[in-house]
């Protein structure tokens, strides 16, 4: 990631959204506005650099819209979670047995599956973060360039000083396997 470019973009957007109170007024307070702004700009920067967002004019305006949508989504999810959330710890097993009479799936099994899936997701994410942090800098840059920012092997070779695109492809493949093995070992 080009930190200098990002800092410049950040300054422009921060002034537009936070200093000039556009997002602060929408969200209601500075702390939440800054949090949602950080999330929006991070997603926007990574995804637009990867070419997922095709937009070249008024980027800060677009970022403001994205931040607003994220805020709306977050509010909506929070509301839904409050309405339908089940705290499994507080549900008595006898109730689940009664409920099993009325449902096709066993609530006890469903409860265990849900918890297990959540734990697995969490474990996987932690393992991945740890493994990625252990990778050498070259591998990190190569994987980000090829998989996150979708830069062609020829361009990466030119930027990072490799002899050819083939070298980049081979190294990326090795780094990818190295990372996957590290993650797998941690699981």
């Amino acid at each position: 990631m080009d930190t200098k470019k990002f800092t410049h973009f950040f300054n422009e957007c921060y002034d537009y959204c936070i200093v000039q109170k556009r997002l602060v007024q929408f969200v209601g307070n500075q702390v939440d506005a800054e949090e949602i702004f950080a999330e929006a700009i991070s997603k926007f920067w990574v995804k637009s650099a990867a070419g997922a967002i095709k937009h070249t004019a008024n980027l800060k305006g677009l970022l403001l819209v994205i931040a607003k949508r994220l805020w709306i989504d977050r509010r909506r999810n929070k509301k839904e979670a409050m309405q339908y959330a089940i705290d499994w710890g507080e549900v008595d097993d006898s109730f689940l047995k009664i409920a099993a009479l009325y449902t096709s799936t066993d609530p006890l099994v469903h409860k265990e599956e849900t918890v297990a899936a959540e734990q697995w997701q969490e474990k996987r994410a932690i393992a991945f973060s740890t493994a990625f942090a252990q990778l050498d800098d070259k591998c990190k840059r190569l994987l980000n360039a090829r998989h996150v920012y979708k830069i062609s092997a020829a361009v990466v070779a030119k930027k990072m000083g490799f002899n050819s695109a083939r070298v980049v492809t081979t190294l990326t493949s090795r780094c990818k396997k190295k990372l996957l093995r590290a993650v797998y070992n941690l699981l």
Partner: protein
Amino acid sequence: MSTPHDDFDVIAAYREDTLTPKEKAAFVARLAKDNQLQIQLDLYDNLTDFLVTEEIARTKTLTNTLIAQKHAKGKKRVWLTYLLNYKKRVVAVAAIILVFIGLFWWYYPASQRNADLAQHYFSASQTLSYHPNTMSSNVLDINEKKLLEAHELYEKKVYVEALNILKNYSLTTDAAILLTGVCEYELQNYSAAITSFLSLSNNPNSDRVGLARWYLALTYIATNNTTAAIPLLQTIIKDKSAYYEQARALLAKLKT
């Protein structure tokens, strides 16, 4: 640390579709039974998503650091931030304004400004509509300043000193000649006054002709030369120049 056996090479070949049909069939059959292989395939397939999430998290950390720096620096004023962030725009606007000012001064040269100033100055000689102190000293050259000084003295009825200034600085503009005449008239030096007024009233290019004729008529009346005054008053009425109303009243009075 011991490294368990993994099948990432085979998985990569499977996803890149480089396995032979036989190998592929064997892999699919194994995948249905082998839980560890399923996990590895899941990791392989979700690698890009993981990398994107990780990069977003890293960018978010950087963003939070930048926000913290902003907080540490303290809140800048919005306009100052604007100036700093939009330097190019500010410079462009300043340049446009400077170009307009330059064009204005180019099309409106100093001589023209002075002429306009003088015209404004003696648009009605009996009332001075502005005072030298209220004007920028850069705008007026030294003759104009002296002329204003002389007029101030005239308004204070210090005619002799006003005349001294006008004569010492050899002020030869129409406004200066008119003021000289008026001062001479007030001092009852009628012959000198007539000379000044005549030089103006005989000059058709002068824009003080109307005023000069009026004062000349007054001077003639003061010297009991009504025969010379009447045609002058008639000309003023005909031209509807300055003192038109007064000229009509005076002419009616003279005729009776």
